[in-house]
């Protein structure tokens, strides 16, 4: 049996499927997709450029994207980060963690799944050297390992990072993307049996940056991955995290936070592949949008394969539209090929800033600007607390404050939709 849940079909097969569309609002800022072409399982993946052609923009996986702005990253020949590319990767690692720079031929590369779209395949074919971060067997990292990906130009560049948590190790790795860049990137994540790994990827690019990134994670027996994506800066950011379970007892928690301003395109397309029994996935993405032309896309594909009995999955996306002229697309998509599941559900909601909340707070003496701050901080509060990496949490609170200051000055200036004011 295959069940694809979309608004048109929210059947609940045996096994406790819950789908929640009750909170989704059709207010123009929210749209569900058409039923995807075929099953997500049938999507072609390959290391070969020839297998995945340059998209036209009409493909399912590109239909929301500004392909013209991403086009430089579709080219066959990109430069690697060390071969004249404009991107530098530096790592400050915890004492227990090792870092290597390796060539393309290193056999550890390319083990966490294959590229699934054009920018993923150009990233794979374009990089010259990869950064490999290894948390050795049974090591417990005493500090955060920080990978800084810094851009300094707009030459189309490819880069590759591999994070490996060996058996029963524990670590937190934070990838930071800063500066100006036109970058397609692969982040491979291998979580071996019993390891607990947190990977945080922050996209805090300067204006003008174009960034695509294919995150591909493999999660072993009883292993746990917390995968956090934070997207704030850059013109176009498109992240496609894939998580695949390779043995029973695995858990993945995927958390995302994004804040889009005028003319920013921020896209997050997730794929969780429950290929084996008794694994658990939780996806929680929340975004705020403000300003003319701010566009966010969230697509959450979850596939529960026929063998994946006892799967427990839930995904949620919420968007808060702060001003007119912004658009949030949200497409949860759950495919279930077995009835023997623990639980499966999704929820998606996009709402405008709630004037009743504003009134309530103002009626207690709180000025409008401060009231808006409280509401937006409140919207993200729980998610930020869930990240569990203190330095990241603090940075996020500051970043939200910064973003809010932009919209507040637009509101104070009398025009919440003034694109220039919030750009």
């Amino acid at each position: 049996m295959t069940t694809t849940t979309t608004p048109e079909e929210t059947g609940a097969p045996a096994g406790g499927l819950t789908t929640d569309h009750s909170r989704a609002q059709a207010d123009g800022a929210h749209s569900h997709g058409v039923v995807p072409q075929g099953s997500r399982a049938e999507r072609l993946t390959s290391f070969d450029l020839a297998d995945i052609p340059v998209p036209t923009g009409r493909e399912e996986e590109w239909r929301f994207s500004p392909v013209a702005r991403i086009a430089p990253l579709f080219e066959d020949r990109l430069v690697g980060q060390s071969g004249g590319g404009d991107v530098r990767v530096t790592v400050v690692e915890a004492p227990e963690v090792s870092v290597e720079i390796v060539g393309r031929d290193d056999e550890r590369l390319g083990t966490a799944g294959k590229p699934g779209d054009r920018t993923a395949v150009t990233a794979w074919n374009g990089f010259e050297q990869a950064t490999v971060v290894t948390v050795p067997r049974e090591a417990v990292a005493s500090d955060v390992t920080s990978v800084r990906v810094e851009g300094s130009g707009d030459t189309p560049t490819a880069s590759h990072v591999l994070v490996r948590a060996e058996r029963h190790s524990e670590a937190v790795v934070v990838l930071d993307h800063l500066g100006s860049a036109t970058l397609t990137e692969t982040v491979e994540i291998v979580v071996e049996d019993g390891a607990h790994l947190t990977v945080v990827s922050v996209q805090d690019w300067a204006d003008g940056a174009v960034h695509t990134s294919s995150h591909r994670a493999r999660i072993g027996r009883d292993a746990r991955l917390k995968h956090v994506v934070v997207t704030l800066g850059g013109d176009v950011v498109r992240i496609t995290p894939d998580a695949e379970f390779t043995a029973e007892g695995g858990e993945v928690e995927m958390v995302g936070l994004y804040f889009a301003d005028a003319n920013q395109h921020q896209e997050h397309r997730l794929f969780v592949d429950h290929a084996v029994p008794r694994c658990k996935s939780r996806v929680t993405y929340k975004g705020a949008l403000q300003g003319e032309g701010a566009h966010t896309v969230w697509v959450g594909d979850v596939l529960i394969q026929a063998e994946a009995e006892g799967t427990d999955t839930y995904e949620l996306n919420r968007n808060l539209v702060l001003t007119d002229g912004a658009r949030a697309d949200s497409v949860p998509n759950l495919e279930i090929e077995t009835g023997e599941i623990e639980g499966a559900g999704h929820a998606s909601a996009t709402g405008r800033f709630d004037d009743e909340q504003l009134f309530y707070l103002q009626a207690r003496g709180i000025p409008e600007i401060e009231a808006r701050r409280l509401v937006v901080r409140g919207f993200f509060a729980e998610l930020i607390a869930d990240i569990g990496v203190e330095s990241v949490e603090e940075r996020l609170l500051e970043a939200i404050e910064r973003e809010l200051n932009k919209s507040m000055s637009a509101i104070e200036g009398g025009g919440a939709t003034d694109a220039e004011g919030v750009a």
Partner: protein
Amino acid sequence: MSTLEIRDLHVSVETKEGPKPILRGVDLTINSGEVHAIMGPNGSGKSTLAYSIAGHPKYQVTGGSITFDGQDVLAMTVDERARAGVFLAMQYPVEVPGVSVSNFLRTAKTAIDGEAPPLRHWVKDVKSAMQGLRMDDSFAARSVNEGFSGGEKKRHEILQMELLRPKFAVLDETDSGLDVDALRIVSEGVNRVHESTDAGILLITHYTRILRYITPDFVHVFVDGKVAEEGGPELADRLESEGYDRFLPGAVESASAASA
């Protein structure tokens, strides 16, 4: 001593079909220390009056005035009104996810007083006010009104009134949906604030029940967007036995005769 004066107030509500007139010439004067009960059938415009005083953007004032100690209330923003000392306990308090009660109360107190309350006193004040209203300590950490029962929301409104100490409070059907115990606890809270601050109170209710705990100095019967009859507490007793029937359409003459 403060005075809130409402003169010939006309208010429309925005609807999809355009503005709809609700209040049709309301006159009321409320001084510090006075308790005024407004009683009226559902849909008579009681909440509209409450929201208009607080400044809800959905309600358009099309005529008349509201002044507070001579200041033009209608010219003030919602938060300015609150900082001037006007408080509204809402009939349907709003949920604010992710904002804790303690953060909310402290932010509001700081805004109203113009400075942060001294921490030690504040913590004590919040605790004792919560105890007085039989609210569990755990409330402080919960999101504002989120998942609160009807009774909990009303207690939370009165908690705010106790802590913010307004000069003038409108209580919009604070009694609705409360069981007898909760009604008594909430009423005691209102009486505490009233006694300790000498606030003027406009108590909006559909039922006379709450008036057994909070004694009004004046009772106004509100029908079809204006005050149809006024009197002392004895008017509430009459409403208790007779209901609103004589004020409703078809009984227009007897109503006007009674108020004449």
